[in-house]
């Protein structure tokens, strides 16, 4: 799911709002019906200090990111009581996410000021971490919703002032170590993650973060003029947990990747280099390549002359983004909305997976009008603000980056090589054989579970049931003897394609029901699904099942797999809902053969 661009009450756009405006607009949003285009997100907050002052700003900043945030704030200082009581308001609230905000200085007021004197500082930090972890455990007994755990901010005033960081037994060191320890402890949990409060406080000017009056009167740790900053940071995190991240950044060229207009100024005349203003654009190119490093595809849409663009990308000595980094390119004079649709089709991703960065507000408006699914960065007029706009759009945020993500750009490159041999092969069979595919199928384990959950969470097209099981759900099913979570990894002569398909099978006596079947679009048309289903059928037989049952639940995006089961010899037995269906394969009569073009490698034993 992608965030809906919502028309908020007139004029709020992205500008700063006064406290009174936040209060008024938050009330308008809160009174909107649940049928509004905003996605409802129920957030519970448990904190050691007073956090509900952020609520008006959180509602407004949430709406700017497509969310209708409804929040429950626990009585402050209470964690264990609220979490362990099955009848508590928190559990009745049915949260989509929980924020744990526990500060060591709230648990023990000596923590900062007397850190050096009493030598208890590290104990206080450790017991804070212990309580946070116990709180996650306690919440997990009743909910699999994501948990955000605020890490520990450096206080405005340190015991040893500007030299605090010198001493290895200082508060500065202890906080850094505690934050690492907290991250490490949370890494054992599915969907329990650090929420970087420390980074937020640091970036926003630590000493002005707190208003001493508000702290003294109401135990509010965040000054009122910083509440919007806090709310934006939290809303961005909640949106990342809720919506599918974008997959591709589409770039304009003139005055975006370089200064000037190449058609007028020529390749030598554009501004790009190590001095102002060329250094602004060069730095922006670095930031863009940083996104590519973690798996974001890059594409170009520019109204320009293809030959001069080609020359600049290949030969300009200061150019960092070279043609190899660009997965799709449209340089012509057509409307950009049309080019964006073509790029989405070429890359085999949804148009809503595209983010456009264009300096020209007229082009941005054309895209917003004619391809409204594309997320368009609100680029500032001054190129010095580009980097910040890109980093802060938040549309590429993911909680974890997998190995597959990091290699994606390379994968798309080898895909083009595959295309070339496809066009030279005389038959499909010959083409598939020439790929020299090797598939490994096996049960999910702790190493690949994040990728398995990511595939289940992100796949839209080759997804039979679109059941978005969380990582915690997958872990639970993997540990349950009544389920099987199986994956396929694929490699071919061009390289490793990674973990690209997952099936979850629910064993019910005679029946083995395929609860989930997803496959990456990258490997469509290569009979990989046949290999995974052959494995599933074999496992089901091993469990003594005689019937293999598949389900198809239609969505706007998964029409391509509507007849998958019937093509493989399953028989339709009943309809599900409007256009969905159940299919049966009699395992005593029909075999699902392993596809000939794919070599099978030894799988680890299933449970």
């Amino acid at each position, binding site marked *: 799911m992608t965030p809906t661009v919502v028309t908020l009450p007139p004029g709020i756009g992205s500008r700063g709002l*006064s*406290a*009174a*405006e936040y*209060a*008024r607009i938050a*009330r308008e949003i809160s009174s909107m019906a649940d049928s509004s285009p905003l996605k409802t997100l129920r957030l519970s907050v448990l904190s050691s200090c007073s956090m*509900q*002052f952020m609520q*008006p700003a959180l509602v407004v900043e949430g709406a700017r990111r497509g969310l209708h945030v409804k929040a429950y704030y626990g009585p402050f200082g209470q964690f264990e009581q609220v979490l362990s009581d099955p009848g508590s308001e928190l559990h009745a609230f049915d949260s989509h996410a929980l924020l744990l905000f526990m500060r060591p200085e709230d648990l023990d007021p000596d923590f900062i000021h007397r850190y050096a004197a009493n030598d208890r500082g590290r104990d206080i930090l450790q017991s804070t971490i212990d309580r946070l972890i116990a709180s996650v455990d306690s919440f997990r007994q009743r909910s699999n919703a994501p948990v955000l755990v605020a890490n520990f901010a450096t206080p405005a005033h340190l015991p040893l002032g500007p030299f605090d960081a010198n001493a290895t037994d200082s508060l500065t060191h202890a906080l850094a170590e505690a934050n690492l320890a907290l991250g490490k402890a949370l890494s054992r949990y599915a969907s329990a993650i650090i929420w970087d409060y420390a980074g937020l406080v640091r970036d926003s000017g630590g000493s002005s973060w707190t208003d*001493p*009056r*508000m702290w*003294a*009167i*109401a135990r*509010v740790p965040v000054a*009122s*003029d910083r509440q919007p900053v806090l709310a934006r940071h939290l809303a961005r995190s909640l949106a990342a947990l809720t919506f599918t991240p974008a997959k591709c950044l589409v770039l304009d060229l003139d005055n975006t990747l370089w200064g000037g207009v190449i058609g007028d100024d020529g390749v030598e005349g554009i501004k790009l280099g190590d001095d102002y203003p060329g250094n602004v654009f060069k730095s922006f190119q670095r930031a863009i390549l940083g996104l590519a490093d973690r798996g974001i595809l890059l594409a170009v849409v520019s109204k320009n002359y293809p030959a001069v663009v080609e020359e600049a990308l290949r030969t300009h000595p200061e150019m960092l983004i070279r043609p190899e980094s660009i997965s799709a390119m449209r340089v012509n004079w057509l409307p950009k909305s049309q080019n964006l649709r073509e790029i989405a089709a070429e890359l085999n991703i949804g148009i809503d997976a595209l983010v456009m960065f264009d300096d020209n507000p007229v082009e941005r408006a054309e895209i917003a009008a004619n391809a409204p699914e594309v997320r368009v960065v609100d680029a500032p007029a001054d190129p010095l603000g580009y980097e910040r706009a890109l980093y802060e759009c938040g549309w590429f945020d993911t909680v974890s980056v997998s190995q597959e993500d990091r290699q994606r750009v390379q994968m798309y490159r080898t895909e083009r090589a595959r295309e070339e041999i496809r066009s030279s092969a005389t038959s499909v069979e010959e083409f598939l054989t020439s790929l020299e595919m090797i598939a490994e199928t096996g049960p999910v384990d702790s190493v690949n579970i994040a990728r398995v959950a990511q595939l289940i969470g992100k796949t839209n097209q080759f997804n039979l049931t679109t059941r978005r099981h969380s990582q915690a759900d997958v872990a639970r099913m993997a540990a349950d003897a009544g389920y099987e979570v199986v994956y396929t990894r694929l490699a071919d002569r061009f390289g490793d394609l990674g973990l690209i398909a997952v099936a979850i099978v629910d064993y019910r006596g005679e029946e083995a029901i395929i609860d989930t079947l997803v496959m990456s679009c990258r490997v469509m048309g290569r009979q990989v699904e046949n290999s995974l289903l052959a494995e599933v059928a074999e496992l089901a037989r091993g469990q003594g099942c005689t019937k293999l049952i598949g389900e198809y639940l239609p969505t706007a995006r998964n029409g391509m797999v509507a007849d998958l089961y019937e093509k493989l010899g399953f028989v339709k037995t009943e309809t599900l809902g409007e256009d969905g269906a159940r299919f049966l394969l009699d395992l005593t009569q029909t075999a699902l053969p392993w596809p000939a073009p794919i070599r099978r490698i030894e799988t680890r034993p299933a449970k």
Partner: protein
Amino acid sequence: MNQISAADDLGQRLRDVVGAVFGVDPAMITADASSATIAEWDSVRHLQLMLALEEEFNVQFDADELVSLRSIALIDQRLRASAS
């Protein structure tokens, strides 16, 4: 007296901010309104109101004032004192 006249710019701005923070019609906010007469005027919204007023009128209250300015009349008087 701390009468608020509708034609008075400061009085109108004050009522607009109070109305926005509490979600009540500014016309309903009379000169004798206080945390005792407006149900929405609870302790959290009181501080939200104080901070919204600081922003709107470009003033800074001290902590004692943040605690004690719990009526329209007191707020009005305080804002006029710093405006003059």
